[in-house]
């Protein structure tokens, strides 16, 4: 992982379907820091994450990552864990994960260890279509571990996870921060680690 990094947004605006979701939003996060984005439904938490991931074009403002890999764009250094799990029901757990390892430039050899970490090592040959919602979420978490990226953008990451799963995930996030990564998570539930709060769109 690179040295000290700083991700900052200045005067961000977002317009969706002709409606101003938010405007003039500032945020910053640096290595080893987690930011919890909170706000009521529809306040633009997901939109903010997708702006950072380059999946939405901002209506105004800039997002800058200082100190990352200069040869890569910001989205290329991000992991985006959205509502949808990016899993193919016809492929097995191991096939799903090794595809993303190959496509995103990770190591296949790390895949088995990541599956063990998230507690799916007993189900590697099961088609992903048979997994429960919680297991699907665990499989997407394994993607974050198999391919190393400094910035994690997490959208309601603990959804569908059981208590043990949430604890496991809290532990993974802490490890990521210790290694110098940074996390921006949109959430209603407590993340299970110390996080700076970024409130958008009034009171939650």
């Amino acid at each position: 992982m690179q040295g000290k990094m700083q991700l900052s947004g200045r005067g961000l605006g977002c317009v969706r379907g002709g409606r101003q979701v938010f405007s003039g939003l500032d945020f910053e996060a640096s290595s080893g820091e987690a930011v919890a984005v909170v706000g009521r439904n529809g306040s633009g938490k997901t939109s903010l994450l997708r702006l950072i991931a380059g999946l939405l074009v901002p209506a105004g403002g800039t997002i800058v990552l200082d100190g990352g890999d200069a040869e890569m764009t910001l989205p290329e250094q991000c992991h985006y864990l959205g509502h949808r799990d990016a899993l193919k029901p016809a492929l097995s757990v191991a096939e799903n994960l090794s595809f993303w390892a190959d496509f995103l430039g990770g190591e296949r050899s790390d895949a088995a260890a990541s599956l063990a970490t998230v507690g799916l090592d007993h189900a590697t040959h099961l088609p992903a279509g048979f997994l429960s919602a919680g297991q699907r979420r665990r499989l997407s978490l394994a993607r974050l571990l198999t391919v190393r990226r400094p910035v994690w953008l997490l959208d309601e990451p603990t959804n569908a996870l059981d208590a043990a799963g949430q604890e496991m995930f809290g532990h993974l996030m802490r490890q990521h921060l210790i290694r110098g990564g940074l996390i921006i998570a949109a959430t209603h539930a407590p993340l299970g680690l110390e996080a700076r709060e970024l409130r958008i769109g009034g009171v939650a």
Partner: protein
Amino acid sequence: MTALSALIRRDIRIALRVGGGALIGVLFFLTVVVLMPFAVGPDLALLSRLGPAILWLGALLASLLTLDRLFMADHEDGSLDLITMSRTPLELACAAKALAHWLAAGLPLIVATPVLGLLLNLDMVATGAVALTLLAGTPALTFTGMIGAALAVTLHRGGLLMAVLVLPLSIPVLIFGVAASQAAIVGPMTFGAPFSILCALSLVSLVIGPFAAAASLKHGLD
């Protein structure tokens, strides 16, 4: 390179699994062509005259049948987000997906052609000519169809819109594909001229398709 070959392998694997698109396309092609002799009647001369056109129409409709899911499935499960964010240029990823679709859904149609030629009273030479024109022409169908598939994602409309958008684009391919087959079978034109144009159409769509599809997908980000 690893990224692209991984994408191609994944798409082919999904297409070949139960419920994938590859088998459905071939079955549809078989059904359309097998029904034709019953509709046209047992006039062998007429059948062999219509044969190339029927095979081409069948292949066109069969390749359209599965094409509308090309990007829709990845869009629905969120894979497209990750593909867009990755280091791999979206244009190359689009080309890889189209190639995988052609390998899984287009190539089996060409393999099935000799069998179906029998049903349409086409001799060996004629069947070979049709198979060759399909081999040269179906990439054009896939790569222009990809533009429609990308627009279907952008505009949030599947199915019918895709057919309405793509079918007019495939008219030139159909014209020269059937013309080349007829030239080989009955003459009087030479086979070379329409066949070269067919190859040219495929090459042009190979270049334009990925860029147009990627531009459409980028524009439709949400």
